[in-house]
C-alpha cells in the first residue's frame, strides 16, 4: 500500500502519476527557457564564447545598432514583412469571404486548395518565382526584354518588395484559414438585420461585415507579421544569392560566413535577442487584440446559418480570382521546377528545349548526399511526430483536467514556442550545442538536435488541437476507468487515446508533413551527417546548381503528394486546421 503525504501533491487528484506527467510536460518549457537564455548569454560575450577568455560586454549591442548595414537590413525586413502581409491578405481575405459568406460553387475545392497551400513549402514558391522573375534567368524577364527590346530586366524579384510578394503568396493560405474562422464565428443575424432594414449587399459588406471583422483581421495581420518578420526560407532562396538580406538571412551569414570570415556569434546573439523581443511584443499585442475581440464578440449559437450572398454571374469572376491565385502561387512555380529538373540548363521553354528534356540531373546528382538527406528526413518524420504526440498529450491532459494553478504555467509554456520564430529556436539550439554542451554532449551536427527543435516548435499546434478534443470528452469516462482500477497509463491507452484518435492522427500527419518540408532549422543546424532532404535542395540551390535543386525538389514532391492527400482526407474529418 503506497502512502504519500496529502500535502506534497502538486497537481490534481491523481497523485504520483500526475507528477510523472508533469515532469514530462515541463521538458519543452525548460528547453525553450534554456534556448532563450543561451541567446542572451552569448549576446554579451566577445572573444571565444563560453571559454574563460570570453569578455562580458555590451559592445555587441552598440556595434550592431550603430552599423548602417544592419539598419538597412532592418529596413529591408520591415518592407518585406509589410508587403508579405498585404499580399497575404489581398488573396486570403477575399477568398475566405467567398468561401464562408457567398454562394460561390465548389467550396470544397476552395478549402482543398487553401488548406493544402499550407503544406506546399514556401521554398517551392520561392524557387519557382526565381525561375519566373529573376533579373537574369527569369523567363518573364527574358520574354519582356525580347518583346519590347529592353536593355535590362523590368522585374526584379530579388528586392524586399519582390520577396515580400512571394512570401505573401505563400502566407495567403494562412491568412485564409485565420479569416475564414473569423467569418464563420460572426453572428449572421447582424447582417440580416441590415438587410431587413433595406441595405444592399455591397453596403452591408462595407458598413457591417467588415467593421465587425476588424478585430479578427487585425489579429490575423499581427499573426502574419510575427511569422513574416523572422521567416528565413524564402528570403534565403531569393535573396542570399543576390546579396539582399533580411534579419534572418543576415544571422545566417554571421553563423555561416562566406569565404575566409569567422562566425560572429556575439552579433548573432544580439540580433537573435532583438528578434525575441520583437516577437514577444507582437505576441503580446496579438493576445491583447484577441481578448478585445472576444469582448465584443457577437456570440453565435449553433443554430445560426449565415445568409449567403448570391453572386450570380460574379461567381465566374470569383473563380478567375481563385484560379489566378492558385496558378501564380502554386501551379506555375511547381511547373517551372519540374521543367528545370528536366532541362539540361535553364532557359525559357521552347519547342527546341522540349526535345532536350531528360532525366540527366537525376543521374547526375550526388546520390550519396541525397540518400543521406532522405535517411535523416525519414528519421525525423518518424520520430518527431511521435514525440510531439506524447508530449502534447501529456501537456493537454494536465491542462484540461488539472485544477491546480500550475496548469496556467503549462498553458503558457506550451504557447511559448508559438511566440518564438523557428530561426530563433534554431540559433538557440546551435549556440547551446556549441557552447554549453560542447563535447560533453555531442549534439552538434547530429540529427537529434534538429529533432529536438522540431518537437518544441510543433508543440504549440499539437497542444492546441489536443486541448480542444480532450475538452470534448466527458471527465467521468476516465474517472470510471480510475475507479475501476485502471492505471493512469492504461486509462490513457485504452480509454482516452482511442476516443481522440482522429485528432491524434491529424496532429501526427500535420507534424510529419511540416517536418518533411522544413528548411529553416535544417539549414542552420545541418553540418554533414545530419543534412535533411530540404537542406540538400538548399545546398544545391545556394551553390548555383538550380537544375539539380529542382530535380531533388521534384523527387521530394513525388513522395509528398500522397501524404498531402491523406492529410486532406483525414484533416477534413477531424476539423483540425493548422496554424
Amino acid at each position: 500500500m503506497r502512502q504519500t503525504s496529502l500535502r506534497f501533491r502538486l497537481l490534481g487528484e491523481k497523485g504520483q502519476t500526475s507528477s510523472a506527467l508533469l515532469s514530462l510536460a515541463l521538458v519543452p518549457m525548460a528547453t525553450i527557457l534554456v534556448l532563450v537564455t543561451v541567446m542572451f548569454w552569448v549576446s554579451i560575450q566577445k572573444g571565444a564564447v563560453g571559454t574563460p577568455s570570453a569578455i562580458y560586454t555590451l559592445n555587441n549591442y552598440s556595434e550592431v545598432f550603430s552599423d548602417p548595414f544592419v539598419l538597412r537590413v532592418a529596413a529591408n525586413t520591415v518592407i518585406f514583412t509589410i508587403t508579405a502581409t498585404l499580399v497575404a491578405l489581398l488573396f486570403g481575405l477575399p477568398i475566405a469571404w467567398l468561401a464562408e459568406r457567398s454562394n460561390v460553387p465548389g467550396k470544397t475545392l476552395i478549402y482543398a486548395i487553401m488548406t493544402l497551400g499550407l503544406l506546399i513549402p514556401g521554398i517551392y514558391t520561392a524557387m519557382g518565382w526565381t525561375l519566373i522573375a529573376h533579373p537574369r534567368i527569369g523567363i518573364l524577364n527574358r520574354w519582356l526584354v525580347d518583346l519590347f527590346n529592353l536593355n535590362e530586366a523590368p522585374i526584379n524579384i530579388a528586392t524586399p518588395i519582390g520577396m515580400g510578394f512571394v512570401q505573401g503568396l505563400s502566407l495567403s493560405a494562412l491568412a485564409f484559414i485565420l479569416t475564414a474562422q473569423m467569418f464563420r464565428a460572426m453572428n449572421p443575424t447582424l447582417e440580416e438585420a441590415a438587410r431587413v432594414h433595406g441595405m444592399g449587399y455591397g453596403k452591408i459588406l462595407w458598413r457591417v461585415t467588415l467593421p465587425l471583422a476588424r478585430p479578427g483581421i487585425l489579429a490575423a495581420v499581427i499573426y502574419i507579421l510575427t511569422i513574416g518578420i523572422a521567416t528565413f526560407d524564402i528570403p534565403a532562396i531569393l535573396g542570399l544569392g543576390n546579396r539582399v538580406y533580411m534579419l534572418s538571412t543576415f544571422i545566417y551569414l554571421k553563423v555561416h560566413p562566406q569565404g575566409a570570415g569567422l562566425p560572429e556569434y556575439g552579433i548573432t546573439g544580439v540580433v537573435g535577442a532583438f528578434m525575441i523581443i520583437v516577437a514577444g511584443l507582437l505576441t503580446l499585442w496579438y493576445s491583447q487584440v484577441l481578448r478585445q475581440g472576444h469582448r465584443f464578440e457577437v456570440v453565435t449559437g449553433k443554430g445560426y446559418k449565415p445568409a449567403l450572398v448570391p453572386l450570380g454571374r460574379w461567381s465566374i469572376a470569383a473563380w478567375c480570382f481563385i484560379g489566378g491565385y492558385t496558378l501564380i502561387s502554386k501551379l506555375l512555380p511547381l511547373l517551372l521546377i519540374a521543367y528545370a529538373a528536366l532541362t539540361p540548363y535553364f532557359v525559357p521553354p521552347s519547342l527546341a528545349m522540349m526535345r532536350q528534356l531528360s532525366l540527366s540531373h537525376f543521374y547526375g546528382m550526388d546520390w550519396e548526399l541525397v540518400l543521406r538527406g532522405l535517411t535523416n528526413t525519414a528519421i525525423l518524420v518518424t520520430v518527431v511526430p511521435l514525440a510531439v504526440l506524447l508530449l502534447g498529450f501529456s501537456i493537454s491532459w494536465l491542462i484540461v483536467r488539472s485544477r491546480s494553478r500550475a496548469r496556467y504555467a503549462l498553458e503558457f509554456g506550451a504557447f511559448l514556442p508559438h511566440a518564438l520564430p523557428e530561426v530563433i529556436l534554431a540559433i538557440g539550439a546551435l549556440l547551446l550545442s556549441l557552447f554549453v554542451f560542447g563535447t560533453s554532449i555531442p549534439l552538434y551536427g547530429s540529427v537529434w538536435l534538429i529533432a529536438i527543435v522540431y518537437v518544441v516548435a510543433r508543440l504549440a499546434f499539437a497542444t492546441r488541437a489536443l486541448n480542444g478534443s480532450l475538452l470534448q470528452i466527458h471527465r467521468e469516462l476516465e474517472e470510471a476507468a480510475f475507479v475501476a482500477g485502471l492505471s493512469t497509463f492504461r486509462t490513457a491507452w485504452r480509454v482516452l487515446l482511442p476516443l481522440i484518435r482522429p485528432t491524434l492522427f491529424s496532429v501526427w500527419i500535420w507534424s510529419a508533413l511540416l517536418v518533411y518540408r522544413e528548411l529553416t532549422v535544417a539549414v542552420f543546424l545541418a553540418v554533414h551527417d545530419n543534412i535533411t532532404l530540404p537542406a540538400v535542395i538548399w545546398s544545391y540551390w545556394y551553390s548555383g546548381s538550380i537544375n539539380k535543386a529542382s530535380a531533388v525538389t521534384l523527387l521530394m514532391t513525388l513522395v509528398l503528394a500522397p501524404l498531402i492527400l491523406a492529410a486532406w482526407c483525414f484533416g477534413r474529418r477531424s476539423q483540425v486546421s493548422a496554424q
Partner: protein
Amino acid sequence: MISISRLQKRFNVSDGVVAAIRSLDLEIAEGELFVIVGASGSGKTTLLRCIAGLETPDAGEIRIAGKVVSSDNPPTWIPPQQRKLGMVFQSYAVWPHLTVCENIALPLAEGSQRIPRREVAQRVQEALRLVQLEEQSDRPATLLSGGQQQRVALARAIAVNSRIVLMDEPLSNLDARLREEVRGKIRELAKQLGSTVLYVTHDQIEAMAIADKIALMQAGELLQVGAPFEIYHKPTCADVAEFFGSVNWLDAQVVEAGVADSPLGKLQIESSSKVGDKVLLGFRPECLSLSDSGANCSNSFQAKIGSSTFLGDQFIYTVIVNERQLFGKNRTIPQSPDGTALCRVSPSDIMVFPSRSKNGG
C-alpha cells in the same frame, strides 16, 4: 463498511472558496442500501467522489472495509485504482469505443485486479446476466438506449466489486416511467448480491423507495440519518420535514402540558415542551382527516372548503380555518351542502419543533 469522520472539502473558485463538505461524519453498515439525498449543490457528488478517491479531502478520515484510504493524520492516500469500488456515474461513463462486453471486461482484465482471461469471460457473463443484457453483449455500447447503457454501467460496477457500490444519481437521465422500474431492480440486485450500496439522489421519493437508511444532506452537512419511515415521520428539524413532503406549518405556544394554542385553536400535541414555549407545529396534508360525524373528538375544527386539484390517485384540496389555509390530501373531495366540513388531525401526527421564523401557508 464505509466510515467517515470529520470530512471536509473546499473548492477554490474564481470568486472565493466554496465549502462543499463541512465536517461530516457517516457510518454505513455492511449490506446496507444507504441513500444520501439532498438538493442540487448540497455536496453529494463531492462526498461520493471523496470516497472514490476522485477528490482529495482537505481534512478528515475515510475508511473502507476497515482500511484507511484517506486521512490527514497520519497523512494517507490510496489512489482510486486501489480502493476496489464499484461505481455508477451520473453520465454512466460507458466507454463509447467499446462493446458492451468489452466495457465490463476492460477493468477486470487490465485493472488493478488482473483477473485471468478465462475468469474474466465468466464474470462478464455473470454480470450481464444479472442486468439482463446477455443479448446485447457484442453490440457497440453507444448503440444502446439510455436504460440499457445504465445497465451496462451497473454491470461494470458490480463486476469490479459487488461488495461496495457507489452510485451517483444513476436514474437521473432516464425518463420517469423507467425510473420506477429500474430503482426496484437496483434494490433487488443489491439485496440479492448482499452489496453495500451508497446511493446519491436529489429525489426524495426515489430515496424513500429504495433506501434501508437515508441521510439528508444540506449545504455540506448531514441533517439527519435514519430509516425512511423514521425520517419521514420523526424528522428532527423542520428542514428535514419539509424536504420529504409538504407540511402545514403553524406557529403556536404551549399553554399547558400537551396543549398548544395555535391559529386553529387549542391543539393537543405529544411533546414535552414546557409551558410558555413558542413552538412550530407541522402536520402533513394526508394527516388532515375529514370527519363527517361526531364533533366532539379532540383536535377537530370547522373549516371552509376551498379549491381542489385532481391528481389521479387522490385529490389535493385546501380548507380555510380562521383565515388560515391548510392543505389536505384524500381519495375523495370533501363535500357538504354548506361548504364547510369538520377536520381533524390526530395528536400523534403533529410534529413539534422549536419555534423559528417560519410561516405556514
